């Protein structure tokens, strides 16, 4: 059992080390520092009771930067390995393509989760400094954001086998950032639609991976109470199902790829 797990774990470890060597964590630290400096903006307004604004800026920065880092880091994994020809010596060793693919997925997902946790720690410190209280919903938001990293990494890694690097990064970022806009647009127009267009809109809504459902930031910003545990459970299941689908498609493609 351990022998089977050890190989992808080793690949994952190398992926994380490679990310550290490429100075990705430094990027996180620099972005974090920018976030803290941005918080200096608040003192300029000189009005008390700006908790929502501080939380809003902090969460926006955290969400955007963690998604960008996850997408960029994941999208380059396999194309870089193929382009630099470092994939061949790895596959020459007694390791299956599935294990290699799983190891890559594990590595980038863990790295992205670490980035999210680092951002949330930074954000929590920032809120502590400003004396802004956060309830249990803050930690629920952290959980869902971590969960979304596994979801996004699976999707981007899968797409990296079908699209060029630039196209993958662009499409993935648009999908991650624009999913809420897409869902809201369907909700806006749904009542005015009829017939085929209505069925099409509903089918699109059902099939699309709803990344916006992993975003609890508005609830934290506006001081709402924690959400029920069954919702977190449901979202965990939703994330696992979608990540598994993306992983399976990517894995099949990787195994059949002529290298």
């Amino acid at each position, binding site marked *: 059992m351990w022998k089977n797990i050890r190989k992808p774990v080793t690949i994952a470890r190398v992926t994380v080390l490679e990310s550290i060597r490429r100075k990705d964590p430094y990027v996180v630290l620099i972005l974090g520092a920018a976030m803290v400096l941005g918080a200096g903006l*608040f003192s300029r*307004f*000189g*009005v*008390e*009771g*700006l*908790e*929502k*604004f501080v939380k809003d800026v902090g969460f926006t920065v955290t969400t955007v930067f963690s998604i960008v880092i996850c997408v960029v880091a994941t999208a380059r994994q396999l194309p870089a390995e193929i382009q630099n020809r470092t994939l061949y010596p790895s596959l020459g060793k007694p390791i299956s393509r599935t294990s290699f693919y799983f190891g890559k997925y594990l590595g980038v997902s863990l790295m992205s989760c670490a980035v999210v946790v680092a951002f949330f720690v930074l954000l929590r410190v920032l809120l502590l400094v400003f004396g802004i209280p956060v309830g249990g919903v803050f930690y629920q938001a952290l959980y869902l954001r971590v969960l979304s990293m596994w979801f996004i990494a699976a999707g981007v890694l899968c797409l990296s086998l079908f699209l060029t690097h630039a196209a993958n990064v662009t499409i993935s970022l648009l999908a991650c950032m624009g999913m809420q806009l897409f869902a*809201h647009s369907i*909700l*806006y127009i*749904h*009542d*005015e639609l009829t017939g085929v267009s209505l069925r099409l809109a*509903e089918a699109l*809504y*059902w099939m699309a991976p*709803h990344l*916006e*459902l992993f*975003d*609890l930031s*508005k*609830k934290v*910003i*506006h*001081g*709402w109470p924690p*959400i*029920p545990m069954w*919702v977190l459970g*449901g*979202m965990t299941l*939703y994330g696992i199902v979608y990540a598994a689908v993306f992983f399976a498609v990517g894995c099949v493609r990787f195994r059949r790829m002529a290298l």
Partner: protein
Amino acid sequence: MRREGEYSFLRTVTSIPSVSSFIFHPSSFILLICLAGLIAAAPLAHLLAPQLYVEARYKPGEFQAAKESIALSLMGQLQMSVGDLMWLKTLEYLHNGIIYRMPSQREQSQGLQAAEFTGMGAGVAHHDGPSLVPDKDRDWRGPLGDVDRHIEPWRPGHPQHSDPQELIPWYQLLVKFNPHYVQAYTNGAFFMSDFARQPEMGRDFLIAGAEKNPWSFEIESVLGRIYFDYFKDYERAADALVKATGLAKQEKRALAERQDKLDNIQGQLLGEAYLFLARSYTGLGQFDEALAACDEGMEEVPGYNLLRVQKRIVKKHKAGEGGGSE
């Protein structure tokens, strides 16, 4: 002896590796050169500044070129869009994160109408329709809808409004992006003065807005009201409100030429401008001017009944019967 002492001091200094390596390191020379450059740049900048002076106003040729520039047009559209997005953000804050939308045509035909909210004074009035995330009985999404109602801020029933103080930074940011967003100045100043209890901040915000929008009667109207309400400075209030009514007349004329008229919020603000002008004159003891302001106001804004009440108060004051100006 003395020279020997100096040498020994130098030896001591240069024998400390860190100090000597710092002094004689090439980067120290680069730093020194940069420092010298900065010192030299100060008088140079002083000499060059008048040559680099750019006039704030466009010359006629430049204005035409700016109108035809695609890049400037795109930048202008971006400016408007960012401003509008920030305006939506203020509404989101006001509704505790819940997004409301206007009812669709089908909903309107079924009798669902947007409720008008006027609880916070003129300029802050807006319409609240149903929430974007539908109620359970109207939702077609089944379990996804149930999850969405827990993830997105959502509450059944009528909208509830949060502390508007939280909106202030968005107004401040909004006018940085679009300094001609007049309603951001009027709303922001109202919330600063009223909810945040910082009338000085509200006044300065409006003065900055008036500098950037010298044609806006709305800004002068709210400025006059702030002078009246929070500073009891009737003279300045009257000055601002006279300016406001003059600008409003110009705007009405310009709108009439285009077969248009003031909207509801503008009409409300104009009525308030005449009301507070009359009150300011009353506070200054200038009863004839106050009566004239009431008469003019009733003519300009016929539906604004508070002016009739104010006229009666002024008449009582004039006859020596009344108490205060309120």
